[in-house]
């Protein structure tokens, strides 16, 4: 059996020690995966830590015969590929080498299939334990900024067979600020979050997330104890990250794996004020979003979608609000050289692309919804609201009743939407002048 040297400390070391015998029985690639997660323990979100604990406890409880059967396929592929001959003892580096070996042997697809099968067998039990039916409800709001060139006849067309269209009365909510304030409520005092978001962050700032291409939501939440990621506000961070990666490329890298390892180890801090909440776990999250998401360094809405999907998967906030905006057109020439910085004299004017942005965000907001619905934390428990600033219609989907409903007839005010969200979450909010939209909350 391969003896790994994960160098664990604290709670993760205790966990590995408690389940030492179970870990020893697992195939090397699965064991390396778990140990790599344990290595990252301080930088895991609470939901991820809960999952790792539950996974080890569950596998430890499995009868020997059942576990052997569940892992037999993975073990067979590992043996055929010669994974046991890999000399690396650091689990993360071992994983890289094992993946390369499996690819080289042409069995990585089969291996992935066996790993999927293993987790399909144990996930139902884990899901039942981690996400019981009476867990609190969740809310995901997806917004399109007012300058996106929305085509009404195509708006949210991917959801034709889901949810209910609710006409809106937007009187008195012209402009982004008024729209967002009416939607999320006023702030009690400077430094607090808007009422609805504040109500959801009782157990910590990681319970409510706002992720946006620009910074209208952040302007509404500045100083609040919640989590916020703004592509615009992270500009200096992105520039620094790009510059560092470009320098590394210019100085030469041995392999894509070596480059990835270098990138993973980068410690660049966003400037003060760029993040609403800047715990270590979040700094690592931001770096990973930019490094692992294709296009996140280059396209603002791609950043929003990828960060949202990762937040849902990893942090599992109770409230997530995304706000997509207009992206710029890609610049000729300078944009072809990935990671490089155009020199000052080569700056082409920035040209926004409101029409292309609409096509993009229709797809991206759909992906956020799809990914949330794949996640047991959100399935059956989530109200999804889709709004486009300045558009007098809203799409609402309850994940426990996703089928398409006839459109509502009475226009709702944003105050009613605010009341609906509060009712859905069971939150007590001040200044509630609206009425909940009953079909959405009953």
């Amino acid at each position, binding site marked *: 059996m391969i003896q790994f040297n994960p160098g664990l400390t604290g709670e993760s070391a205790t966990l590995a020690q408690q389940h030492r015998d179970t870990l020893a029985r697992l195939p090397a690639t699965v064991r390396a995966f778990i140990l790599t997660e344990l290595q990252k323990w301080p930088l895991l979100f609470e939901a991820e830590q809960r999952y790792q604990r539950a996974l080890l406890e569950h596998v430890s409880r499995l009868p020997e015969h059942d576990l052997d059967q569940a892992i037999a396929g993975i073990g067979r592929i590992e043996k055929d590929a010669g994974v046991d001959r890999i000399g690396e003892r650091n689990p993360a580096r071992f994983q890289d080498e094992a993946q390369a070996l499996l*690819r*080289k042997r*042409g069995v990585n*697809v089969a291996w*992935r299939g066996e790993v999927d099968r293993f987790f399909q067998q144990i996930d139902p039990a884990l899901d039942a334990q981690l996400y019981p039916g009476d867990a609190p409800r969740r809310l995901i709001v997806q917004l399109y900024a007012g300058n996106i060139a929305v085509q009404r006849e195509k708006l949210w067309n991917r959801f034709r067979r889901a949810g209910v269209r609710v006409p809106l009365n937007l009187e008195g909510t012209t402009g982004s600020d008024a729209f967002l304030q009416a939607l999320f409520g006023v702030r009690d005092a400077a430094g607090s979050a808007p009422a609805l978001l504040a109500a959801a962050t009782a157990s910590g700032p990681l319970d409510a997330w706002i992720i946006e291409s620009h910074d209208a939501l952040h302007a509404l939440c500045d100083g609040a104890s919640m989590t916020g990621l703004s592509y615009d506000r992270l500009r200096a961070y992105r520039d620094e990250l790009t510059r560092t990666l470009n320098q590394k490329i210019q100085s030469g890298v041995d392999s*894509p794996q070596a480059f990835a390892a270098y990138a993973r180890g980068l410690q660049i801090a966003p400037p003060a004020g760029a993040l609403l909440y800047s715990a270590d776990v979040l700094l690592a999250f931001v770096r990973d979003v930019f490094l692992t*998401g*294709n*296009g*996140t360094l*280059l*396209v603002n*809405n*791609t950043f929003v*979608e*990828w960060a949202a999907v990762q937040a849902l998967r990893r942090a599992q906030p109770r409230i997530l609000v995304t706000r997509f905006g207009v*992206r710029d057109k*890609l610049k*000729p*020439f*300078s944009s*072809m*050289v990935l990671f*490089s910085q*155009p*020199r*000052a*004299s*080569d700056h082409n004017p920035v040209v926004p*692309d409101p*029409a*292309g*942005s*609409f*096509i*993009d965000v*229709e*797809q*991206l907001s*759909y*992906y956020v919804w*799809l990914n949330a619905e794949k996640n047991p934390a959100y399935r059956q428990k989530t109200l999804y609201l889709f709004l486009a600033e300045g558009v007098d219609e809203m799409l609402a989907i309850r994940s426990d009743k996703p089928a398409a409903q006839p459109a509502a007839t009475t226009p709702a005010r944003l105050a009613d939407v605010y009341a609906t969200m509060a009712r859905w979450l069971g939150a007590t909010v001040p200044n509630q002048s609206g009425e909940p939209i009953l079909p959405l909350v009953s």
Partner: protein
Amino acid sequence: MRWRRRDAIRILAACMADWWLPHRLFAQRPATPKSKAQHERRVIVVTFGGGVRYEDTLAREGWVNIPHLTSELAPQGLVYPIARHEGLTGHFNSTAALVTGSRQNVDAYGSEAPVTPTIFELFRREHALPPEDTWMIATNKSFGLMGGSKLRSFGDPYSANVVLPKQLLISTIKAAVSTESGPGVEDRRALAERMMLALDEGYEGFGWRVFESGRALGAELKASLAKSLLAYFNDPATPTSGDELTFFMTKEIMNRFAPSLLVVNFWDIDIAHYGAYSLYLEAIRRTDRLVYELWQHAQALPAYRDRTTLIVVPEMGRDSDVAGNGFANHRSGDESCRRVWLVALGAGVPRGAGSERPIRTLDVAPTVAQILGFRMAECEGKPLPELAF
């Protein structure tokens, strides 16, 4: 199964020998080249490339993105709506499978050549053809080794010329912006001159493998490339996509050398990795237009008119929304990554036909072999019988 194992051992032995033995860098002109009259048929294979989903192209809802293919090219030829890519869903391996007829499992970033013979090598070897008779023009910058396999009995003496126009563009831009002095990228004339200079200094630095078989050809080749580059920069639409440059280069090579076998790799569609669906759709529409214009160009050249078969095929798909990771990626290996289509038209192809018979992208190579009349090496694909030979 037994033959596959034997085959694998043979390939492995050949590869090892190839590493041990001196590697010849330049192609050789065969001792007794055959005249062009002996192989009048021509084939152009276009990868509708970069990874494109069936639902965004040949499915009913995708027709809006490929108007030229659906309304102008497909009615002239034969459509296989059900084609499948098997094997790894990366660009190099999927394209290498297309030109060899066998699944490939080599370095995804192009540092290794395919492990089974390519159609270029087989064609050139059997017909004793000079290097200028087979070309690969690729937007993907990692395709430098796509023109020949790593087998000792094949390789460089029979490989295709491979040019990577976008790589030239990127390298030149990098050089142009490497210092604060000079015209940068704003002055296109200066940029074009810099490109010419780069070509004079040696294009091997860009990953190009152009096998010169004589001084005269070398000069002609450079003149051709220069003309292509200047045409590119003088285009009133000032195109800035890699595929546009590939298209210009392809036309020049057709004009100058009229190769019998030409594989064109379009790749702009892979901009999907940026996560902007509109840019992905825009690239699909551009590829559709370029394929159409390429066919028009072939019809305008006597060397190609009425004797050319065009095969258009995506080398692979992209992930589905539900089962995979969405259009931005192509690594999940789900069905959407594998489901593609093929359109053939021109010489020997029935007009206005379609075949619901499922085919594989692996079938392209043996089909090309049948059309051009050379023996295909043992491979996984089978010739498409619906095409008349």
